[in-house]
């Protein structure tokens, strides 16, 4: 579009914005590596305080002892505040050096070239330590934008007391999504308490499709294809369950956080979640925790588990990229990943750490059981987050379609057709 301001005014405006943007970025060389003191790198994590304060501090202490020229400043950020804080820091010229992100945020920031390309920054032998499928989940247009840290495949936590009350056998929890739905309906019918809260909020139905073996994109990834009869039938199935009050009305609004809260209150029979959330149940309601048993997450027809991945990314605006990449590789090395996995039920992204016998040894607590169960799921798991351009625009359309269908504003088929049209116009 031809600019409509006079040339002088445009130039002045451009100068003002550029000046403002430049003002926000301190000139290079303000704090060069190798200057008088040690280099300080800033390390951001998501919600690791207070449970893992000692672990992270220990990690940093050991690194600083081994690298006297580097100091690490650790900042723990709440997940809700992360995006905003990160963008503000980058815009303000005080970007952190190493940031813990999830796949979705990594890909979104990679889209605007905000992150360092790890395929280029990390030497091939170091890259080879990680599971190739997990490393690949952080790729956009052929480049990886994060070093994988830990992964958290879902498990099924269920309340044995509610199972018994509903006439279900706690020794035989559901193993497929169909069986999960049947069990949930039985629990609701017999006890009046909800059986489950499916992960269908926001854009999670994109993962539901994949878990049920239904593709979201065409093989060349240039067209959306989630409007087939099978897709429509699957969406209609969940809408029918919702209309018959088989899961709570805040499922679409509150997602897994609402589910965890409800499960911890003893008001939900089954919770499909990352094993680390059992910690919250343990602290919120020891009685429910005591009645909790853990099994493999029910499998859909796609025979695939989603594998939410946490990674360490280095913002392109970091002034100490080499030190930051080195620290990210240290945090995610075999030894440190294994040590972290012994703190909580999470799983390593490196092959050697994952081969440790720790992941096959059982125990008596729900977490011990979850560890063994989830470790067995790893070979069928992959991160189902989509790497697509204009993801926010597309996700907004998808969310609108799914919610319109659930709340009766559109028929399921009509909603999916509409969303596919929107996607194909933008892909």
């Amino acid at each position, binding site marked *: *579009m*031809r*600019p*409509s*301001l006079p040339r002088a005014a*445009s130039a002045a*405006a*451009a100068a*003002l*914005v*550029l000046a*403002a*943007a430049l003002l926000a970025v301190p000139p290079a060389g303000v704090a060069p590596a190798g200057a008088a003191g040690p280099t300080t790198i800033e390390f951001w994590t998501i919600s690791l305080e207070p449970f893992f304060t000692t672990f992270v501090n220990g990690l940093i202490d050991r690194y600083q002892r081994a690298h006297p020229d580097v100091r690490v400043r650790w900042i723990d950020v709440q997940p809700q505040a992360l*995006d*905003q804080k990160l*963008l503000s820091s*980058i*815009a303000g010229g005080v970007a952190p050096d190493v940031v813990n992100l999830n796949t979705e945020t990594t890909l*979104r*920031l990679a889209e*605007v*070239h*905000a992150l360092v390309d790890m395929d280029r920054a990390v030497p091939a032998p170091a890259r080879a330590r990680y599971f190739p499928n997990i490393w690949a989940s952080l790729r956009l247009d052929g480049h990886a934008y994060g070093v994988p840290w830990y992964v958290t495949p879902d498990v099924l936590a269920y309340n044995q007391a509610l199972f018994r009350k509903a006439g279900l056998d706690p020794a035989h929890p559901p193993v497929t999504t169909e069986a999960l739905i049947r069990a949930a309906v039985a629990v609701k019918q017999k006890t009046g308490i909800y059986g489950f809260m499916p992960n269908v909020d926001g854009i999670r139905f994109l993962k539901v499709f994949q878990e049920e073996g239904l593709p979201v994109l065409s093989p060349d990834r240039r067209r959306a294809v989630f409007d087939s009869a099978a897709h429509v039938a699957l969406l209609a199935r969940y809408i029918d369950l919702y209309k018959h009050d088989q899961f*709570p*009305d*805040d499922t*679409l*609004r509150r997602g897994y956080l609402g589910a965890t809260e409800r499960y911890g209150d003893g008001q939900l029979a089954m919770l499909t979640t990352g094993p680390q959330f059992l910690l919250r149940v343990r602290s919120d309601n020891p009685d429910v925790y005591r009645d909790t048993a853990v099994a493999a997450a029910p499998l859909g027809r796609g025979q695939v588990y989603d594998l939410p991945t946490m990674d360490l990314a280095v913002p*392109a*605006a970091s002034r100490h990229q080499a030190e930051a990449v080195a620290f990210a590789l240290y945090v995610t090395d075999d030894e440190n990943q294994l040590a972290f996995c012994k703190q909580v039920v999470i799983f390593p992204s490196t092959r050697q750490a994952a081969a440790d016998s720790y992941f096959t040894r059982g125990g008596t607590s729900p977490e011990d059981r979850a560890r063994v169960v989830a470790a067995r799921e790893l070979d069928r798991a992959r991160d189902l987050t989509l790497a697509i351009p204009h993801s*926010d*625009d597309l996700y*907004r359309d998808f*969310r*609108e379609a799914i*919610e*319109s269908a*659930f*709340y009766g*504003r559109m028929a399921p088929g009509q909603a999916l057709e509409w969303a596919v049209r929107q996607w194909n116009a933008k892909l």
Partner: protein
Amino acid sequence: MERQALNRGPAAASRTVARGGGAAARTTIAYLFLAPALLLLAVFTFYPVVFGTVLSLFDYNVISPPRYVGFSQFAALWSDRYFWTALRNSAVYLAVVPVLQLSAIVLALWVRQPLRGIAWFRAAYYIPVVTSIVVVGLMWRWLYDEAGLLNYVLLRLGVVHAPIHWLSDPNLALYAVMGVTWWKGIGYYMVIYLAGLEAIPSYYDEAAALDGAGAWARLFRVTIPLLRPSILLASTISILAALRVFEEIYVMTGGGPIFSTYTMFYYMFDQAFNSLHLGYAAAIGVVLAAITALFSAVNFRLMRTGGLSYY
């Protein structure tokens, strides 16, 4: 001479007094007193306003340098469905303003009475104002829950026969959030109106009573007209707050369901921090600022007469 100057207004009076001697010193001192506030305003208000306005003409995502795109982002807004959804929701949200102001006036008139324990009530009504919006949001989320207190009471009273999905019903969610804005704001506006009522000399009311005016006539013919400056102030603040509503929505609904609580400010936030379209978000901000200015101007126009100049 001084009297004449006063009649011409404070600025003229100041000039007249200044001519008497020490004019420059007095002006300098005045500016020095203003300087800290002006500096803060310059850094945290004027600069962002200018920067945001200019930014609306640029495509900017924080990471790459800004690219001048002229008014194309405003043109894009015109055909952006979500913008119109947000605008419509913000317009509906404005309905909270008259309800809030009317109830705050009624409340102020009530707590102004010299009743036993009324100070406790005044404090109680003000508690929501000073309570963190996150706490308020969480509390109301529980109250609005399908099995929450509100539904429990309504069901027990037989007002409804099935729980109301306050925050999950696209036709209801926006009004439910507006209810929270009303609950949180009423104490704040009550204080403004209490101050306004205290400023009205009691002899106006007494004179009207002596002339035989009843309670309603005194309220509508004496008190309300004299309260107009406070109404102007409170309703302007309330309009600004309603157009900028964000926290309640962020905590309680996240803009859903089906974008039924997606307001202008929320859309601006979404575009800036989720989609990284900061220039586009700035364009939304400029439109929002224009709408706000328009509403404020209309409000000033409608409410400018009144107060003690009424008589």
